[in-house]
């Protein structure tokens, strides 16, 4: 009898423990609502800023509790997919373009709720390029509320270029000429540090050249247009340019290191090179160029806040309130200045704000900061055709077909024709 009672007790204790261990998610308690906010600011300094903003919000909205869920960027895909499967997506999620497209494709984005937030904030508050990137395929709704962004281009060391009589390279030919002039493989000096790795960075860098040659990966009907003369020409050029970069698969680390340690006077990289230049180099010596052929094409991306579908009204309202709060000029400025220079403002009012203008890092780069901010309006990306932001681009990027093609052609022995045909085949299978 005693043992029976002991058994029951053991079971109750275990059950209570398990219930206690289960996460407390988004529930209403006595008129209060708790919502989860998943973000990727894992670094201590950034975490402090985000937590500070949450505290501020809770102070002015005592009936809403924000439960932060911090996730490392690398494991965001895994988290989002598993949480979506378990119907446990947080009420507010910080996502990049690819994740936003994946969620949208699976009808997991409350585009109406986001549209209402954008309409409250005002479309004019955002740079056109930023809004273009978060628009849904039909152009009616939004996949996220832009918070920050970055643009990619060619960064160059003004002094090094001038030492050989070069000015900013304006087009494909000039870029090739400068890269060739600085390459001395015997002494491990290269003209340009550019991505060739089988990863997203290569797709981003290559897309900039392809788009400047008016070659997109999809046409207005959403059909794959990889095998076109313009695309081949762009890949041929990328291959040619890669003769003047470091051997092997170059990714984020290799490109940044080569530029920062003077191995190469030019690098294809995002604005996230600015904090490194500020810390170790001379900001006034940094130049920013955009490769030009038929047109100028800037690759850029935005990080946005999204609200998933299926929320209760109270949670949805709380999520909208929180997103609006973070989008206020002073809060968005704080958000951007977590990584000054790297994260670029997507709100016009942030660029004009005193806090942003007086930031020492932003100031150090002088006119370059304005040049970068303005380039946000020139953003072009694969899959964005005539303002139609194709959701299937998420699948194309996930398949890694473009980086594999770039790597095969630049690092491997494949010809442009072979690379394009293999990628075309892979993409047709993916989009079947």
């Amino acid at each position, binding site marked *: 009898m005693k*043992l029976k009672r*002991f*058994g029951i007790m*053991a*079971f109750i*204790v*275990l059950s209570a423990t*398990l219930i206690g261990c289960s996460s407390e998610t988004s529930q209403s308690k006595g008129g209060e609502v708790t919502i989860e906010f998943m973000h990727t600011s894992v670094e201590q300094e950034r975490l402090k800023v985000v937590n500070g903003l949450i505290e501020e919000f809770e102070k002015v909205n005592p009936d809403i509790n924000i439960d932060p869920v911090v996730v490392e960027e690398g494991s965001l*895909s*895994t988290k989002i*997919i598993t949480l*979506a*499967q*378990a*119907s446990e997506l947080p009420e507010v999620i910080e996502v990049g373009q690819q994740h936003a497209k*994946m969620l949208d494709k*699976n*009808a*997991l984005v409350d585009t109406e709720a986001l549209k209402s937030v954008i309409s409250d904030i005002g479309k004019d508050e955002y740079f056109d390029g930023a809004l273009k990137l978060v628009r849904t395929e039909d152009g009616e709704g939004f996949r996220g509320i832009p918070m920050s962004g970055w643009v990619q281009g060619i960064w160059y060391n003004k002094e090094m270029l001038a030492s050989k009589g070069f000015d900013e390279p304006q087009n494909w030919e000039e870029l090739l000429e400068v890269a060739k002039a600085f390459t001395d*493989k015997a002494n*491990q000096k290269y003209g340009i540090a550019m991505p060739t*790795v*089988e*990863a997203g960075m290569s797709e981003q860098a290559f897309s900039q050249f392809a788009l400047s040659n008016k070659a997109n990966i999809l046409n207005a009907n959403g059909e794959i247009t990889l095998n076109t003369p313009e695309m081949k020409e762009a890949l041929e050029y990328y291959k040619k340019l890669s003769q003047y970069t*470091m*051997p*092997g*698969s170059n990714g984020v*680390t*290799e490109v940044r*290191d*080569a530029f920062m*340690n003077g*191995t190469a006077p030019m690098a294809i990289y995002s604005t996230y090179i600015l904090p490194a230049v500020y810390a170790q180099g001379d900001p006034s010596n940094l130049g920013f160029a955009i490769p030009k052929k038929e047109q100028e094409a800037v690759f850029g991306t935005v990080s946005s806040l999204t609200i998933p*579908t*299926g929320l209760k009204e109270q949670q949805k309202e709380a999520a909208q309130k929180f997103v609006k709060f973070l989008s206020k000029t002073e809060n968005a400025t704080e958000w951007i200045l977590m990584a000054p220079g790297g994260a670029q403002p997507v709100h016009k009012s942030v660029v004009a704000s005193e806090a942003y203008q007086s930031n020492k890092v932003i100031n150090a780069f002088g006119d370059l900061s304005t040049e970068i901010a303005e380039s946000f309006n020139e953003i072009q990306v694969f899959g964005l055709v005539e303002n139609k932001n194709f959701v299937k681009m998420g*699948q194309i990027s*996930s*398949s*890694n077909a473009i980086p594999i093609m770039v*790597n095969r052609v630049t*690092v*491997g022995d494949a010809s442009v024709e072979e690379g394009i045909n293999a990628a075309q085949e892979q993409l047709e299978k*993916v989009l079947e």
Partner: protein
Amino acid sequence: MFKVKRETSDGKLALILLLPSTLLILLLIGYPMLSNFYISFFEQPINPEFPAEFVGFENYIETLTNIDFYKSLGITLLYTLLVVVGSTALGLYVAIMFNRPFRFRKVARSLIILSYVTPSISLIFVWKYMFNSGYGIINYIGRDILHLFDRAPLWFDNPTSAFILVVLFAIWRYFPYAFIAFLAILQTISPTLYEAAEMDGANIWQKFKAVTLPAIMPVMLTVITLRTIWMFYMFEDVYLLTNKVNVLGVYLYETAFAFNDLGKASAISVILFLVISTLIIAIRKKVNLNASS
């Protein structure tokens, strides 16, 4: 009579004490396993609000008729075999070397286990820096000092050298686990056994075969079993080091999280479970047989 009564009540108590663990195992392992098995027969959308489509054995058939799956399986089996043999042998060798007193033994022991306790990501970055074609120390020594090659080989871009490097990385990273386990069991072997063997005229190899091996066999079996399971499912080390070695962990990850094909990924994991179970049973039988003989 009294004895029998006591045994009965002990059994009940044991069952009750086991109950929480059993429930936990059922909850944490049993349920996900069954759920995974169930999903493997469906085309599973990411959005749970959408209905999952029953596809029968389609996910299994697609996987088992895909040449890439077999390539990946072959690479994984070879990778697992080389790493398990390499890390176990190295761990045992170093443990035997450390099973005797010498100066700074404690410090040396701590240094040995460093590679095991350091987070993977830091070690991977160190290896990538070491093999960097521009400023990597391996290329500096090979090219600039020893002049073994004129241009830095593309270590992580060539599938063969990339495979060799991921195997070496894993052996180096995981041998301390075997080392700790073997050192612990070696310290329990009585020196009198070695003395007796020596009196019988046994040489080093004979002493190892007659005294050491039987004594460490249970530990060796555990080390081999666990390391086989861990290496078979290896993902992060390989994924972060190179794109040229497509082990099953990477294949599974890409199916689930790059292509979002959850049903197929579940089918792959069921197949992997069957492969690894067969492998483990075979290893246990083989090692047990050897032990008894």
